[in-house]
Protein backbone atom coordinates (compact mmCIF):
# COMPACT_ATOMS: atom_id res chain seq x y z
CA UNK A 1 0.00 0.00 0.00
CA UNK A 2 1.54 3.29 -1.02
CA UNK A 3 0.65 6.75 0.13
CA UNK A 4 -1.48 7.47 -2.94
CA UNK A 5 -3.77 4.64 -1.93
CA UNK A 6 -4.19 5.98 1.58
CA UNK A 7 -4.68 9.53 0.41
CA UNK A 8 -7.47 8.49 -1.92
CA UNK A 9 -8.97 6.23 0.70
CA UNK A 10 -9.12 9.24 3.04
CA UNK A 11 -10.80 11.24 0.29
CA UNK A 12 -13.55 8.61 0.08
CA UNK A 13 -14.14 8.89 3.82
CA UNK A 14 -14.17 12.68 3.53
CA UNK A 15 -16.71 12.52 0.69
CA UNK A 16 -19.00 10.29 2.74
CA UNK A 17 -18.71 12.60 5.75
CA UNK A 18 -19.49 15.66 3.60
CA UNK A 19 -22.65 14.00 2.32
CA UNK A 20 -23.67 12.85 5.80
CA UNK A 21 -22.94 16.27 7.26
CA UNK A 22 -25.07 18.00 4.65
CA UNK A 23 -27.89 15.57 5.28
CA UNK A 24 -27.76 16.24 9.01
CA UNK A 25 -27.83 19.97 8.35
CA UNK A 26 -31.35 19.50 7.02
CA UNK A 27 -32.90 19.17 10.49
CA UNK A 28 -32.58 21.69 13.34
CA UNK A 29 -31.75 19.08 15.96
CA UNK A 30 -28.83 17.54 14.10
CA UNK A 31 -27.65 20.57 12.13
CA UNK A 32 -24.81 21.55 14.42
CA UNK A 33 -23.42 18.03 14.46
CA UNK A 34 -23.75 17.91 10.71
CA UNK A 35 -21.65 21.03 10.37
CA UNK A 36 -19.03 19.56 12.69
CA UNK A 37 -19.00 16.36 10.65
CA UNK A 38 -18.45 18.32 7.48
CA UNK A 39 -15.61 20.23 9.18
CA UNK A 40 -14.02 16.90 10.17
CA UNK A 41 -14.33 15.76 6.55
CA UNK A 42 -12.47 18.91 5.52
CA UNK A 43 -9.76 18.24 8.09
CA UNK A 44 -9.33 14.68 6.84
CA UNK A 45 -9.06 15.89 3.25
CA UNK A 46 -6.48 18.52 4.22
CA UNK A 47 -4.34 16.13 6.28
CA UNK A 48 -4.47 13.47 3.56
CA UNK A 49 -3.37 16.04 1.01
CA UNK A 50 -0.49 17.14 3.20
CA UNK A 51 0.80 13.55 3.11
CA UNK A 52 1.37 13.87 -0.63
CA UNK A 53 5.00 13.13 -1.26
CA UNK A 54 7.33 15.90 -2.33
CA UNK A 55 5.39 18.82 -0.84
CA UNK A 56 7.48 21.55 0.69
CA UNK A 57 5.70 22.84 3.74
CA UNK A 58 7.06 26.26 4.56
CA UNK A 59 4.91 28.16 2.05
CA UNK A 60 1.91 26.06 2.93
CA UNK A 61 2.31 26.86 6.61
CA UNK A 62 2.51 30.56 5.87
CA UNK A 63 -0.72 30.46 3.85
CA UNK A 64 -2.52 28.28 6.40
CA UNK A 65 -1.59 30.56 9.30
CA UNK A 66 -2.64 33.73 7.50
CA UNK A 67 -5.92 32.18 6.34
CA UNK A 68 -6.80 30.61 9.68
CA UNK A 69 -6.16 33.79 11.64
CA UNK A 70 -8.16 35.95 9.25
CA UNK A 71 -10.97 33.40 8.99
CA UNK A 72 -11.24 32.97 12.75
CA UNK A 73 -11.24 36.69 13.39
CA UNK A 74 -13.88 37.27 10.76
CA UNK A 75 -16.13 34.52 12.11
CA UNK A 76 -15.77 35.63 15.73
CA UNK A 77 -16.28 39.32 15.26
CA UNK A 78 -19.10 39.50 12.76
CA UNK A 79 -22.47 40.58 14.13
CA UNK A 80 -25.43 38.33 13.36
CA UNK A 81 -27.09 41.17 11.48
CA UNK A 82 -24.05 41.33 9.19
CA UNK A 83 -24.21 37.65 8.34
CA UNK A 84 -25.24 38.03 4.67
CA UNK A 85 -22.23 40.14 3.78
CA UNK A 86 -19.96 37.82 5.76
CA UNK A 87 -21.18 34.81 3.79
CA UNK A 88 -20.66 36.78 0.57
CA UNK A 89 -17.06 37.60 1.50
CA UNK A 90 -16.22 34.03 2.50
CA UNK A 91 -17.75 32.85 -0.72
CA UNK A 92 -15.62 35.29 -2.67
CA UNK A 93 -12.42 34.10 -1.05
CA UNK A 94 -13.26 30.52 -2.05
CA UNK A 95 -13.79 31.67 -5.63
CA UNK A 96 -10.46 33.48 -5.65
CA UNK A 97 -8.72 30.34 -4.38
CA UNK A 98 -10.19 28.28 -7.24
CA UNK A 99 -9.07 30.91 -9.75
CA UNK A 100 -5.55 30.81 -8.36
CA UNK A 101 -5.40 27.00 -8.35
CA UNK A 102 -6.23 27.07 -12.06
CA UNK A 103 -3.69 29.79 -12.76
CA UNK A 104 -0.90 28.00 -10.90
CA UNK A 105 -1.64 24.73 -12.69
CA UNK A 106 -1.34 26.55 -16.00
CA UNK A 107 1.76 28.45 -14.94
CA UNK A 108 3.56 25.27 -13.94
CA UNK A 109 2.54 23.23 -16.97
CA UNK A 110 1.37 25.39 -19.89
CA UNK A 111 1.49 22.47 -22.32
CA UNK A 112 -1.01 20.30 -20.46
CA UNK A 113 -3.52 18.13 -22.38
CA UNK A 114 -6.58 19.81 -23.86
CA UNK A 115 -8.94 18.50 -21.18
CA UNK A 116 -6.84 20.02 -18.40
CA UNK A 117 -6.53 23.25 -20.34
CA UNK A 118 -10.30 23.53 -20.66
CA UNK A 119 -10.68 22.79 -16.95
CA UNK A 120 -8.16 25.52 -16.12
CA UNK A 121 -10.15 27.90 -18.28
CA UNK A 122 -13.39 27.05 -16.47
CA UNK A 123 -11.95 27.25 -12.98
CA UNK A 124 -10.40 30.65 -13.73
CA UNK A 125 -13.59 31.95 -15.33
CA UNK A 126 -16.04 30.72 -12.69
CA UNK A 127 -13.64 31.47 -9.84
CA UNK A 128 -13.08 35.00 -11.12
CA UNK A 129 -16.79 35.76 -11.53
CA UNK A 130 -17.48 34.31 -8.07
CA UNK A 131 -14.73 36.40 -6.51
CA UNK A 132 -15.61 39.85 -7.78
CA UNK A 133 -19.33 39.08 -7.87
CA UNK A 134 -19.22 38.21 -4.18
CA UNK A 135 -17.17 41.29 -3.35
CA UNK A 136 -19.76 43.49 -5.07
CA UNK A 137 -22.54 41.61 -3.27
CA UNK A 138 -20.69 42.25 -0.02
CA UNK A 139 -20.44 45.94 -0.87
CA UNK A 140 -24.15 46.16 -1.64
CA UNK A 141 -25.19 44.22 1.46
CA UNK A 142 -23.07 46.29 3.79
CA UNK A 143 -24.17 49.45 1.99
CA UNK A 144 -20.56 50.25 1.16
CA UNK A 145 -21.89 50.81 -2.33
CA UNK A 146 -25.47 51.65 -3.22
CA UNK A 147 -27.74 48.65 -2.97
CA UNK A 148 -29.90 50.08 -5.72
CA UNK A 149 -29.60 48.51 -9.16
CA UNK A 150 -26.86 50.20 -11.17
CA UNK A 151 -27.93 50.53 -14.79
CA UNK A 152 -26.57 52.39 -17.77
CA UNK A 153 -27.38 52.56 -21.42
CA UNK A 154 -26.01 49.68 -23.46
CA UNK A 155 -25.30 47.63 -20.36
CA UNK A 156 -26.49 44.43 -21.93
CA UNK A 157 -24.40 45.06 -25.03
CA UNK A 158 -21.28 45.67 -22.96
CA UNK A 159 -21.87 42.50 -20.96
CA UNK A 160 -22.52 40.47 -24.10
CA UNK A 161 -19.32 41.78 -25.66
CA UNK A 162 -17.33 40.79 -22.59
CA UNK A 163 -18.84 37.31 -22.59
CA UNK A 164 -18.07 37.00 -26.30
CA UNK A 165 -14.49 38.14 -25.70
CA UNK A 166 -14.07 35.61 -22.89
CA UNK A 167 -15.33 32.84 -25.16
CA UNK A 168 -13.12 33.92 -28.06
CA UNK A 169 -10.01 34.28 -25.91
CA UNK A 170 -10.87 30.91 -24.37
CA UNK A 171 -10.87 29.34 -27.81
CA UNK A 172 -7.50 30.91 -28.66
CA UNK A 173 -6.10 29.82 -25.34
CA UNK A 174 -7.37 26.24 -25.50
CA UNK A 175 -6.04 25.75 -29.04
CA UNK A 176 -2.52 26.82 -28.15
CA UNK A 177 -2.11 27.30 -24.40
CA UNK A 178 1.70 27.49 -24.45
CA UNK A 179 1.81 30.52 -26.71
CA UNK A 180 -1.21 32.33 -25.25
CA UNK A 181 -0.16 33.43 -21.79
CA UNK A 182 -1.32 36.96 -22.50
CA UNK A 183 -4.72 35.71 -23.68
CA UNK A 184 -4.95 33.74 -20.46
CA UNK A 185 -4.25 36.84 -18.37
CA UNK A 186 -6.90 38.70 -20.37
CA UNK A 187 -9.37 35.93 -19.54
CA UNK A 188 -8.65 36.38 -15.84
CA UNK A 189 -9.08 40.14 -16.10
CA UNK A 190 -12.31 39.91 -18.08
CA UNK A 191 -13.74 37.28 -15.71
CA UNK A 192 -13.10 39.62 -12.80
CA UNK A 193 -14.76 42.49 -14.67
CA UNK A 194 -17.70 40.26 -15.63
CA UNK A 195 -18.28 39.37 -11.97
CA UNK A 196 -18.61 43.05 -11.10
CA UNK A 197 -20.83 43.88 -14.06
CA UNK A 198 -23.08 40.89 -13.49
CA UNK A 199 -23.95 41.86 -9.92
CA UNK A 200 -24.15 45.69 -10.01
CA UNK A 201 -27.48 45.77 -11.89
CA UNK A 202 -29.12 43.62 -9.21
CA UNK A 203 -30.98 45.39 -6.41
CA UNK A 204 -30.64 44.80 -2.68
CA UNK A 205 -33.91 42.92 -2.32
CA UNK A 206 -32.81 40.34 -4.86
CA UNK A 207 -29.65 39.56 -2.93
CA UNK A 208 -30.99 36.27 -1.48
CA UNK A 209 -31.04 34.95 -5.03
CA UNK A 210 -27.63 36.34 -5.90
CA UNK A 211 -25.95 34.96 -2.79
CA UNK A 212 -27.41 31.52 -3.40
CA UNK A 213 -26.27 31.62 -6.99
CA UNK A 214 -22.75 32.81 -6.14
CA UNK A 215 -22.62 30.04 -3.55
CA UNK A 216 -23.43 27.60 -6.30
CA UNK A 217 -20.73 29.13 -8.52
CA UNK A 218 -18.06 28.75 -5.85
CA UNK A 219 -18.90 25.04 -5.73
CA UNK A 220 -18.69 24.77 -9.49
CA UNK A 221 -15.36 26.61 -9.47
CA UNK A 222 -14.02 24.08 -6.96
CA UNK A 223 -15.38 21.36 -9.20
CA UNK A 224 -13.52 22.76 -12.20
CA UNK A 225 -10.35 23.02 -10.11
CA UNK A 226 -10.92 19.36 -9.28
CA UNK A 227 -10.81 18.49 -12.96
CA UNK A 228 -7.60 20.51 -13.31
CA UNK A 229 -5.73 18.52 -10.70
CA UNK A 230 -7.84 15.37 -11.30
CA UNK A 231 -8.92 15.14 -7.74
CA UNK A 232 -12.09 13.28 -6.74
CA UNK A 233 -12.79 15.04 -3.49
CA UNK A 234 -12.84 18.46 -5.13
CA UNK A 235 -15.29 17.21 -7.72
CA UNK A 236 -17.59 15.57 -5.16
CA UNK A 237 -17.60 18.44 -2.65
CA UNK A 238 -17.77 21.08 -5.39
CA UNK A 239 -20.73 19.36 -7.02
CA UNK A 240 -22.56 19.04 -3.68
CA UNK A 241 -22.21 22.78 -3.10
CA UNK A 242 -23.08 23.59 -6.69
CA UNK A 243 -26.28 21.56 -6.47
CA UNK A 244 -27.31 22.96 -3.10
CA UNK A 245 -26.75 26.52 -4.30
CA UNK A 246 -28.91 25.93 -7.35
CA UNK A 247 -31.74 24.52 -5.23
CA UNK A 248 -31.67 27.51 -2.88
CA UNK A 249 -31.63 29.83 -5.88
CA UNK A 250 -34.72 28.12 -7.22
CA UNK A 251 -36.53 28.33 -3.88
CA UNK A 252 -35.77 32.05 -3.66
CA UNK A 253 -36.93 32.74 -7.21
CA UNK A 254 -40.14 30.83 -6.62
CA UNK A 255 -40.76 32.85 -3.45
CA UNK A 256 -40.66 36.01 -5.56
CA UNK A 257 -42.56 34.50 -8.46
CA UNK A 258 -39.82 35.56 -10.86
CA UNK A 259 -37.52 33.68 -13.16
CA UNK A 260 -33.80 33.60 -12.52
CA UNK A 261 -33.24 35.47 -15.79
CA UNK A 262 -35.58 38.22 -14.61
CA UNK A 263 -33.69 38.56 -11.32
CA UNK A 264 -30.29 38.66 -13.01
CA UNK A 265 -30.97 40.92 -15.94
CA UNK A 266 -34.01 43.10 -15.36
CA UNK A 267 -32.47 45.67 -13.01
CA UNK A 268 -35.61 45.20 -10.94
CA UNK A 269 -36.65 48.22 -8.92
CA UNK A 270 -35.02 50.89 -11.03
CA UNK A 271 -37.56 51.27 -13.80
CA UNK A 272 -40.60 51.49 -11.60
CA UNK A 273 -40.25 55.06 -10.43
CA UNK A 274 -42.88 56.43 -12.78
CA UNK A 275 -45.32 53.69 -11.82
CA UNK A 276 -45.03 54.36 -8.15
CA UNK A 277 -47.11 57.51 -8.24
CA UNK A 278 -49.80 55.83 -10.30
CA UNK A 279 -50.21 53.11 -7.71
CA UNK A 280 -51.62 53.54 -4.27
CA UNK A 281 -52.59 56.90 -2.93
CA UNK A 282 -54.76 58.31 -0.24
CA UNK A 283 -54.59 59.25 3.34
CA UNK A 284 -52.00 57.79 5.65
CA UNK A 285 -53.08 57.33 9.26
CA UNK A 286 -50.22 57.64 11.63
CA UNK A 287 -50.28 56.51 15.19
CA UNK A 288 -48.58 57.51 18.41
CA UNK A 289 -46.69 55.03 20.51
CA UNK A 290 -49.31 55.42 23.20
CA UNK A 291 -52.13 54.45 20.82
CA UNK A 292 -50.07 51.50 19.65
CA UNK A 293 -49.72 50.45 23.26
CA UNK A 294 -53.50 50.47 23.79
CA UNK A 295 -54.00 48.45 20.60
CA UNK A 296 -51.43 45.85 21.57
CA UNK A 297 -52.57 45.75 25.16
CA UNK A 298 -56.07 44.80 24.08
CA UNK A 299 -55.00 42.34 21.38
CA UNK A 300 -55.69 38.63 21.80
CA UNK A 301 -53.45 37.61 18.95
CA UNK A 302 -50.43 39.41 17.52
CA UNK A 303 -48.32 38.58 14.50
CA UNK A 304 -44.91 40.17 13.97
CA UNK A 305 -43.75 40.39 10.39
CA UNK A 306 -40.03 41.17 10.33
CA UNK A 307 -38.12 42.38 7.29
CA UNK A 308 -34.71 43.72 6.45
CA UNK A 309 -35.46 46.87 8.49
CA UNK A 310 -35.38 44.71 11.63
CA UNK A 311 -31.80 43.75 10.82
CA UNK A 312 -30.82 47.33 10.03
CA UNK A 313 -32.28 48.63 13.29
CA UNK A 314 -30.81 45.65 15.19
CA UNK A 315 -34.22 45.37 16.78
CA UNK A 316 -34.45 41.58 17.13
CA UNK A 317 -33.80 41.57 20.89
CA UNK A 318 -36.32 44.28 21.76
CA UNK A 319 -38.91 42.64 19.53
CA UNK A 320 -38.43 39.41 21.41
CA UNK A 321 -38.80 41.27 24.71
CA UNK A 322 -42.03 42.88 23.51
CA UNK A 323 -43.27 39.48 22.32
CA UNK A 324 -42.69 38.05 25.79
CA UNK A 325 -44.51 40.92 27.45
CA UNK A 326 -47.47 40.45 25.11
CA UNK A 327 -47.53 36.76 25.85
CA UNK A 328 -47.58 37.39 29.58
CA UNK A 329 -50.37 39.83 28.86
CA UNK A 330 -52.39 36.94 27.48
CA UNK A 331 -51.97 37.44 23.75
CA UNK A 332 -50.99 34.70 21.35
CA UNK A 333 -47.79 35.80 19.65
CA UNK A 334 -46.53 34.57 16.32
CA UNK A 335 -43.77 35.57 13.94
CA UNK A 336 -44.51 35.35 10.22
CA UNK A 337 -41.47 34.95 8.03
CA UNK A 338 -41.47 35.49 4.32
CA UNK A 339 -38.97 33.31 2.45
CA UNK A 340 -37.16 36.30 0.94
CA UNK A 341 -37.44 38.68 3.89
CA UNK A 342 -33.98 40.07 4.55
CA UNK A 343 -30.90 39.76 2.48
CA UNK A 344 -30.23 36.07 2.37
CA UNK A 345 -32.26 32.87 2.56
CA UNK A 346 -33.41 32.36 6.15
CA UNK A 347 -31.98 35.69 7.30
CA UNK A 348 -34.87 36.49 9.68
CA UNK A 349 -34.78 33.04 11.23
CA UNK A 350 -31.15 33.54 12.22
CA UNK A 351 -31.81 36.95 13.78
CA UNK A 352 -34.82 35.74 15.75
CA UNK A 353 -32.90 32.66 16.84
CA UNK A 354 -30.19 34.98 18.11
CA UNK A 355 -32.81 36.80 20.17
CA UNK A 356 -34.07 33.48 21.58
CA UNK A 357 -37.47 33.58 19.99
CA UNK A 358 -38.88 30.08 20.55
CA UNK A 359 -39.02 27.86 17.54
CA UNK A 360 -42.77 27.21 17.77
CA UNK A 361 -43.57 30.91 17.35
CA UNK A 362 -41.99 31.06 13.89
CA UNK A 363 -44.48 30.58 11.07
CA UNK A 364 -43.76 30.29 7.39
CA UNK A 365 -45.85 32.28 4.96
CA UNK A 366 -48.10 29.40 3.93
CA UNK A 367 -48.80 28.51 7.54
CA UNK A 368 -49.71 32.02 8.69
CA UNK A 369 -51.79 33.31 5.77
CA UNK A 370 -54.88 31.16 6.47
CA UNK A 371 -54.87 32.48 10.06
CA UNK A 372 -54.54 36.14 9.14
CA UNK A 373 -58.20 37.04 9.32
CA UNK A 374 -58.38 35.96 12.95
CA UNK A 375 -55.39 38.07 13.96
CA UNK A 376 -56.08 41.19 15.99
CA UNK A 377 -52.88 43.10 15.32
CA UNK A 378 -50.20 42.48 12.73
CA UNK A 379 -47.00 44.40 13.43
CA UNK A 380 -44.84 44.95 10.35
CA UNK A 381 -41.27 45.75 11.29
CA UNK A 382 -39.07 46.93 8.48
CA UNK A 383 -40.75 44.78 5.87
CA UNK A 384 -42.29 46.35 2.80
CA UNK A 385 -42.53 44.56 -0.52
CA UNK A 386 -43.28 41.19 1.09
CA UNK A 387 -46.50 42.60 2.60
CA UNK A 388 -47.58 44.75 -0.34
CA UNK A 389 -51.12 43.75 -1.40
CA UNK A 390 -50.32 45.08 -4.87
CA UNK A 391 -48.79 41.67 -5.43
CA UNK A 392 -52.34 40.30 -5.29
CA UNK A 393 -54.39 43.22 -6.60
CA UNK A 394 -52.48 45.32 -9.09
CA UNK A 395 -51.87 43.52 -12.36
CA UNK A 396 -49.31 45.97 -13.71
CA UNK A 397 -47.30 46.13 -10.51
CA UNK A 398 -43.75 44.82 -10.88
CA UNK A 399 -44.29 42.52 -7.94
CA UNK A 400 -47.67 41.24 -9.13
CA UNK A 401 -47.93 37.50 -8.51
CA UNK A 402 -45.32 37.39 -5.78
CA UNK A 403 -46.65 35.43 -2.80
CA UNK A 404 -46.93 37.80 0.15
CA UNK A 405 -47.86 37.67 3.80
CA UNK A 406 -51.43 38.92 3.85
CA UNK A 407 -51.14 41.29 6.80
CA UNK A 408 -53.83 43.51 5.29
CA UNK A 409 -56.37 40.84 6.24
CA UNK A 410 -55.63 41.23 9.92
CA UNK A 411 -58.01 43.42 11.90
CA UNK A 412 -55.39 46.09 12.47
CA UNK A 413 -51.98 46.49 10.91
CA UNK A 414 -49.28 48.55 12.59
CA UNK A 415 -46.42 49.39 10.28
CA UNK A 416 -43.16 50.45 11.92
CA UNK A 417 -41.24 52.51 9.45
CA UNK A 418 -38.73 55.33 9.30
CA UNK A 419 -40.52 57.29 6.59
CA UNK A 420 -42.83 56.81 3.63
CA UNK A 421 -39.87 55.74 1.47
CA UNK A 422 -40.49 52.86 -0.88
CA UNK A 423 -39.08 49.37 -0.43
CA UNK A 424 -36.36 47.96 -2.60
CA UNK A 425 -38.75 47.19 -5.41
CA UNK A 426 -39.10 50.98 -5.60
CA UNK A 427 -42.88 50.88 -5.52
CA UNK A 428 -45.32 52.52 -3.18
CA UNK A 429 -47.04 50.15 -0.81
CA UNK A 430 -50.82 50.47 -0.97
CA UNK A 431 -51.02 48.73 2.40
CA UNK A 432 -50.00 52.04 4.00
CA UNK A 433 -53.21 53.67 2.79
CA UNK A 434 -55.60 50.96 3.90
CA UNK A 435 -58.40 51.63 6.36
CA UNK A 436 -57.03 49.16 8.89
CA UNK A 437 -53.41 50.29 8.64
CA UNK A 438 -51.71 52.57 11.14
CA UNK A 439 -48.23 53.94 10.51
CA UNK A 440 -45.85 54.22 13.42
CA UNK A 441 -42.98 56.35 12.22
CA UNK A 442 -39.53 56.27 13.71
CA UNK A 443 -36.59 53.99 14.34
CA UNK A 444 -37.96 50.49 14.94
CA UNK A 445 -35.73 49.76 17.90
CA UNK A 446 -36.39 53.04 19.68
CA UNK A 447 -40.13 52.76 19.03
CA UNK A 448 -40.34 49.27 20.45
CA UNK A 449 -38.28 50.28 23.45
CA UNK A 450 -40.78 53.03 24.17
CA UNK A 451 -43.61 50.52 23.80
CA UNK A 452 -41.93 48.19 26.27
CA UNK A 453 -41.56 51.09 28.69
CA UNK A 454 -45.29 51.80 28.31
CA UNK A 455 -46.09 48.21 29.20
CA UNK A 456 -43.81 48.32 32.21
CA UNK A 457 -45.68 51.29 33.59
Amino acid at each position, binding site marked *: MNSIFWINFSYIIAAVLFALGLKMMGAPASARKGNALSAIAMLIA*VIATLLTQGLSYHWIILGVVIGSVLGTMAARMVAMTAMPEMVALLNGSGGLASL*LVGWIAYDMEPGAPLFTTISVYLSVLIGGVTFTGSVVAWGKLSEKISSKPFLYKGQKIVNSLIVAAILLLGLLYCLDPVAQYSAFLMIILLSLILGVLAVIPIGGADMPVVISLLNSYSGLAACAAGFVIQNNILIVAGALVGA*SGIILTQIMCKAMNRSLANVLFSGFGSVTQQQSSAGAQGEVRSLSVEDAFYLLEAAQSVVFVPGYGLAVAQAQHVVQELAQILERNGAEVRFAIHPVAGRMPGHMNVLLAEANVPYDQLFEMDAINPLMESIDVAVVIGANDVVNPAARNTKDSPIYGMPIINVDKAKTVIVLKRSMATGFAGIQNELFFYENTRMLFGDAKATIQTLIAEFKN
Partner: protein
Amino acid sequence: MDPMTMMFLFFILALSIFLGFELISKVPATLHTPLMSGSNAISGITIVGALIAAGTSKTALATVLGVIAVATAMINVVGGYLVTDRMLAMFKKKDQTQGAKQ
Protein backbone atom coordinates in the same frame (compact mmCIF):
# COMPACT_ATOMS: atom_id res chain seq x y z
CA MET B 1 -5.13 12.30 -19.65
CA ASP B 2 -6.49 8.99 -20.76
CA PRO B 3 -10.17 8.86 -21.69
CA MET B 4 -10.97 6.36 -18.96
CA THR B 5 -9.86 8.72 -16.19
CA MET B 6 -11.87 11.46 -17.80
CA MET B 7 -14.99 9.29 -17.93
CA PHE B 8 -14.41 8.25 -14.36
CA LEU B 9 -14.27 11.88 -13.20
CA PHE B 10 -17.47 12.74 -15.08
CA PHE B 11 -19.12 9.68 -13.57
CA ILE B 12 -18.29 11.02 -10.10
CA LEU B 13 -19.49 14.48 -11.07
CA ALA B 14 -22.86 13.24 -12.30
CA LEU B 15 -23.56 11.18 -9.19
CA SER B 16 -22.42 13.96 -6.84
CA ILE B 17 -24.72 16.53 -8.43
CA PHE B 18 -27.60 14.11 -8.10
CA LEU B 19 -26.69 13.42 -4.48
CA GLY B 20 -26.49 17.16 -3.79
CA PHE B 21 -30.00 17.74 -5.12
CA GLU B 22 -31.36 14.87 -3.07
CA LEU B 23 -29.69 16.03 0.14
CA ILE B 24 -30.75 19.65 0.00
CA SER B 25 -34.19 19.71 -1.54
CA LYS B 26 -36.11 19.11 1.70
CA VAL B 27 -34.35 21.51 4.06
CA PRO B 28 -36.77 23.76 6.01
CA ALA B 29 -36.57 27.53 5.46
CA THR B 30 -35.35 28.06 9.02
CA LEU B 31 -32.08 26.38 8.15
CA HIS B 32 -31.45 28.05 4.82
CA THR B 33 -28.84 30.48 6.12
CA PRO B 34 -26.75 27.96 8.06
CA LEU B 35 -27.08 25.54 5.19
CA MET B 36 -25.78 28.15 2.82
CA SER B 37 -22.85 29.19 4.94
CA GLY B 38 -22.12 25.53 5.73
CA SER B 39 -22.08 24.50 2.10
CA ASN B 40 -20.08 27.64 1.42
CA ALA B 41 -17.45 26.29 3.81
CA ILE B 42 -17.45 23.01 1.90
CA SER B 43 -16.67 24.87 -1.30
CA GLY B 44 -13.41 25.76 0.45
CA ILE B 45 -12.40 22.19 -0.49
CA THR B 46 -10.39 23.93 -3.17
CA ILE B 47 -7.86 24.18 -0.31
CA VAL B 48 -6.74 20.70 -1.43
CA GLY B 49 -5.76 22.09 -4.82
CA ALA B 50 -4.19 25.13 -3.20
CA LEU B 51 -2.06 23.00 -0.85
CA ILE B 52 -0.72 20.90 -3.71
CA ALA B 53 -0.08 24.01 -5.79
CA ALA B 54 1.72 25.86 -2.99
CA GLY B 55 3.71 22.79 -1.97
CA THR B 56 4.98 21.97 -5.45
CA SER B 57 5.48 25.44 -6.90
CA LYS B 58 8.76 26.01 -8.67
CA THR B 59 8.59 29.58 -9.91
CA ALA B 60 8.37 32.67 -7.74
CA LEU B 61 5.03 33.60 -9.30
CA ALA B 62 3.51 30.19 -8.60
CA THR B 63 4.76 30.35 -5.01
CA VAL B 64 3.22 33.73 -4.36
CA LEU B 65 -0.05 32.72 -5.98
CA GLY B 66 0.07 29.44 -4.06
CA VAL B 67 0.40 31.14 -0.70
CA ILE B 68 -2.49 33.47 -1.54
CA ALA B 69 -4.56 30.50 -2.73
CA VAL B 70 -3.95 28.59 0.49
CA ALA B 71 -4.72 31.66 2.58
CA THR B 72 -7.97 32.53 0.78
CA ALA B 73 -9.18 28.92 0.74
CA MET B 74 -8.35 28.68 4.42
CA ILE B 75 -10.34 31.86 5.17
CA ASN B 76 -13.27 30.26 3.37
CA VAL B 77 -12.95 26.99 5.30
CA VAL B 78 -12.20 28.25 8.80
CA GLY B 79 -14.46 31.30 8.62
CA GLY B 80 -17.27 29.31 7.02
CA TYR B 81 -17.34 26.50 9.56
CA LEU B 82 -16.96 28.77 12.59
CA VAL B 83 -19.65 31.18 11.47
CA THR B 84 -22.02 28.31 10.71
CA ASP B 85 -21.35 26.79 14.09
CA ARG B 86 -22.03 30.13 15.76
CA MET B 87 -25.40 30.37 14.06
CA LEU B 88 -26.37 26.78 14.74
CA ALA B 89 -25.42 27.15 18.38
CA MET B 90 -28.22 29.71 18.67
CA PHE B 91 -30.66 27.37 17.04
CA LYS B 92 -29.70 24.69 19.49
CA LYS B 93 -30.20 26.98 22.44
CA LYS B 94 -33.67 27.60 21.22
CA ASP B 95 -34.39 23.87 21.06
CA GLN B 96 -33.33 23.59 24.67
CA THR B 97 -35.54 26.43 25.85
CA GLN B 98 -38.32 24.79 23.95
CA GLY B 99 -37.53 21.50 25.64
CA ALA B 100 -37.54 23.15 29.04
CA LYS B 101 -40.97 24.59 28.35
CA GLN B 102 -42.53 21.27 27.56
